[in-house]
C-alpha cells in the first residue's frame, strides 16, 4: 500500500525529521535582540529612527493587511515592510516558535492572538513596549481589550481586534415558534422547546471543537479559569462551580436534543446555517460580517441581540477571539517595529479600514464611536445597525479571561475531553473534571507549579 519508496525506516525518519525541523539549530533564541532601554525614548530619537532607511519583517495571517502596510509606508517612506503570511494562525505559531528557538528568521513584528501572548512572554520572546511609548496609547483602547496585552504591568502587544459576544438570531424561525429573542438562559431553554416542536430547528448549535466559544460562555457566567504570574506559576481552575453550572445547563439541552453539536466552521455547519437548521448563532462581533458572507440566502432574516443572561436584568457578555501585533524581542529595529504595530492598530485611517473592509472588530474607542463604522446599516440584518449594537456590547465584557503559556495543549486537551463529550452527547461534568486533571498533569510535567 501507500508508496514503494516508503520503507520502515524512512517512515521513522519522516516523522522524526519533522521534529528535527522544529528543534533544529541552537536551542535558545533570546538575548540576541535589542535590550529594552531603561528610560522612555524621546520623540527625537523616534523621529530619527523613522527617518533612517530600514527594512522590517511582519508576519500576519490577515489576507489584506498589505493595504494598511501601504498606508504606513506612505507615512514613513524610509521604512520598508516585508509582509509574510504563513497561512493561518496555528501555522504561524508553529513557525514563529521554531524561529525563536533557532534564533534565526524571527520577524520584527508578528500577529499574535491574545490567548497565545503568554506562550511567547513565557519564553521572553516579546519586547516590552512601555519604553517605546505604548503606555501613552493605552487610553485609546477599550479597557477590557487593553488588559489582554498587559502582563504583570508590562505591555507586550498592541490590540488589533476583539470579539465581544452576542446572539445572532433568525426572526423568521423564532416568530414561527412564537418566541422573542431570549433574554435569559432560562428563556433560551424554554424557547428551545418551542422552536424544536414548532419548526424542527435547533435553538442553536454547540460545537465540540471550539474551545474559545466555550471559554466565552464560562467567562460570561463569571468563571475565571486561568492565572499566570509571568514566571513559573500557573493557576488552573477549569472545573469549578460556575463552569459546572454552565455545562450542566448545556448537558440538559443536548440530552433533550434541543441543541445540535455539529463541529463549527465545517461544511456541515455552513450548510446548517444556510438551511435554517439553527435558529441562533451565539457568536462574537466579527460574526455578523462573516455570516453575511457565508449564508447569503438567509439575508434579511437575521438580527443581533445580547447573549442570554444568567439572571434577568444583567448585561454581561464574553469574549471570543481577537488578536494583537507584538514586537519580537529578537528585533534589531525596535522603534520602527513598534511604530508599525501602533500605526496599524491605532491610526484612525488604518483602524477604520480594518473594521469596515476586513471586518475586524475594532479595539479603539474612537473607531468604535466613529459614524463611519457605527452608522453602517446592513440589509442582511433587516437594516439593523449591527456595528453600533456590538460597540455597546464591548464594554460589558468581563475582564476575567486570562491564559496560560501552553494554549496549544489546553486546546487539544479540550477537544479530547469536554469537546468530545459535547460531540458524543456524553457526560459533560465528568469531562470537565478530566480536562482539569489533564491540564494539571501537563503543567506539572512541564515544570510549572500549579496553584
Amino acid at each position, binding site marked *: *500500500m*501507500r508508496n514503494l519508496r516508503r520503507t520502515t525506516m524512512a517512515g*521513522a525518519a519522516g516523522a522524526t525529521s519533522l*521534529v528535527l525541523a*522544529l528543534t533544529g539549530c541552537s*536551542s535558545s533564541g533570546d538575548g540576541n535582540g535589542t535590550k529594552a532601554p531603561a528610560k522612555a525614548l524621546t520623540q527625537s530619537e523616534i523621529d530619527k529612527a523613522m527617518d533612517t532607511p530600514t527594512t522590517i519583517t511582519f508576519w500576519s495571517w490577515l489576507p489584506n493587511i498589505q493595504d494598511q502596510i501601504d498606508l504606513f509606508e506612505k507615512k514613513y517612506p524610509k521604512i520598508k515592510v516585508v509582509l509574510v503570511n504563513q497561512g493561518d494562525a496555528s501555522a504561524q505559531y508553529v513557525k514563529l516558535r521554531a524561529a525563536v528557538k533557532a534564533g534565526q528568521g524571527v520577524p520584527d513584528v508578528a500577529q499574535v492572538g491574545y490567548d497565545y501572548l503568554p506562550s511567547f512572554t513565557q519564553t521572553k520572546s516579546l519586547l516590552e513596549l512601555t519604553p517605546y511609548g505604548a503606555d501613552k496609547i493605552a487610553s485609546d483602547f477599550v479597557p477590557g481589550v487593553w488588559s489582554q496585552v498587559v502582563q504583570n504591568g508590562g505591555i507586550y502587544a498592541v490590540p488589533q481586534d476583539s470579539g465581544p459576544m452576542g446572539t445572532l438570531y433568525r426572526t423568521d424561525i423564532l416568530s414561527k415558534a412564537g418566541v422573542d429573542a431570549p433574554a435569559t438562559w432560562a428563556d433560551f431553554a424554554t424557547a428551545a422547546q418551542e422552536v424544536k416542536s414548532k419548526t424542527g430547528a435547533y435553538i442553536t448549535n454547540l460545537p465540540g471543537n471550539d474551545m474559545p466559544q466555550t471559554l466565552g460562555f464560562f467567562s460570561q457566567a463569571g468563571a475565571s479559569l486561568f492565572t499566570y504570574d509571568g514566571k513559573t506559576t500557573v493557576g488552573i481552575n477549569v472545573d469549578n462551580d460556575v463552569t459546572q453550572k454552565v455545562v450542566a445547563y448545556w448537558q440538559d439541552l443536548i440530552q433533550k436534543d434541543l441543541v445540535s453539536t455539529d463541529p463549527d466552521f465545517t461544511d456541515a455547519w455552513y450548510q446548517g446555517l444556510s438551511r435554517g437548521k439553527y435558529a441562533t448563532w451565539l457568536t462574537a462581533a466579527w460574526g455578523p460580517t462573516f455570516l453575511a458572507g457565508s449564508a447569503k440566502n438567509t439575508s434579511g432574516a437575521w438580527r443581533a441581540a445580547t447573549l442570554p443572561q444568567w439572571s434577568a436584568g444583567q448585561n454581561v457578555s464574553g469574549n471570543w477571539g481577537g488578536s494583537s501585533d507584538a514586537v519580537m524581542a529578537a528585533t534589531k529595529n525596535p522603534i520602527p517595529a513598534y511604530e508599525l504595530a501602533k500605526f496599524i492598530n491605532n491610526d484612525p485611517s488604518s483602524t477604520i479600514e480594518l473594521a469596515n473592509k476586513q471586518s475586524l472588530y475594532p479595539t479603539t474607542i474612537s473607531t468604535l464611536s466613529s459614524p463611519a463604522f457605527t452608522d453602517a446599516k446592513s440589509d442582511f440584518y433587516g437594516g439593523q445597525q449591527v456595528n453600533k449594537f456590538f460597540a455597546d456590547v464591548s464594554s460589558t465584557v468581563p475582564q476575567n479571561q486570562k491564559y496560560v503559556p501552553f494554549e496549544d495543549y489546553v486546546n487539544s486537551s479540550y*477537544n479530547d475531553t469536554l469537546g468530545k463529550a459535547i460531540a458524543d452527547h456524553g457526560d459533560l461534568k465528568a469531562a470537565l473534571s478530566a480536562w482539569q486533571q489533564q491540564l494539571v498533569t501537563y503543567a506539572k510535567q512541564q515544570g510549572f507549579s500549579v496553584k
Partner: protein
Amino acid sequence: MTAETPRRMALSAPAARRSRGIHAGQTRTAWLLILPFLLVFAAFFTVPLGYSAYLSLFTSKLVGGEVFSGLDNYSRALHDPHFWEGLRRVAFFLCVQMPIMLAASTFIALALDSQRVRGGKFVRLLVFVPYAVPSVVATLMWGYLYGKDYGLITQMFDAVGLHAPDLLSPGSILGSTMNIVCWEFVGYNMIVLYAALRSVPNDLYEAAEIDGAGQWRIAWSIKLPALRPALLLTLIFSIIGSFQLFNEPNLLFNIAPNAIGSDFTPNLYAYNLAFRGQDNNYAAAIAFLLGFVVMIVAFVVQGVTNRKERQA
C-alpha cells in the same frame, strides 16, 4: 582433480594481481559514482535519524529547558495509553482493511490477466487512477461524499427514503478511513500483482491447457503460486502503510474534528505532541518506538511467510 586445475591456474600470482588491480579501480569508481547518493542519504536520512535518536534521550520542559533523561521518554511511551490505543487502532485497521484490499487487488489482477475482460486496458487504467490522485485530494473528496447533511451518500439514502448513516461519527470514522485507503491503493496493488502475473511463462499455461485445466484451475494452481512473492511485497507495504496512517485521519480531522482525537494513530499522536504539545523529545521517542514496532511486525510476517514458502 581435473576440475580444480583451471581454477588454481586462474589464481596464479600475476592473474590475481591483475584482477585485484582492476577490482580496486572499479571500487574507487563505484564509490565515486554513488558518492552523490551517499551524501544526500547521509544528509537527509542518517543525520536526521541520528539527531532524532539523540533528541529522544532528552526531556524538554517549558520551565527549565532541556535535560538528559536517558530512556525516560521510552518508558513513558510504553506506559502511555494514548500510544497503545493508537497502535491498537491501526492494528485493527490492518487486520480488516488489508485483507479486503489485497483480495480485491488479486481478484482484479486475475480477472484482467485472464484476458476475458472487455476493454482490459481501460479497466486497468480506471482502477489505477485513484492511486494517481494525491491522498489529500482523495480524502477531501471522500469527506464531501460522507458529509452528514449534504453528502452524496446521504442524498442517495434520502432519495430512496432511507435513514442515512453518519459516516463521520466517532463510531464509523475508522471504517470510513478504511474505505478511503482501499479506494486509493487497490489499483496500486493490482498493478504490482498484474505485473507479476504477466511474467509467468506462457508454456505453463499451454501445458495446463493440454492437461485439460480450466481457467479457475489455472488461476488456483499456477497464477496464485506465481503471485506469492508479489503478494508478500504488497503485504509488507500494507503493514507499513497501516501503521503509518497519517494523511487521511489528519485531513478528516478538519471535516470531523470530534470523531478523530489527537491520538487517533501513533503517527498523528507524535505529530500532535511535537506541534501542538511542543514536546519534540517525546514525539521523537514515539516515532522511534513506532518504527521498531513496524520493523518487528514486518520481520515476523516475512519470517512466517518465508518459512511457509520453504515448506511448500
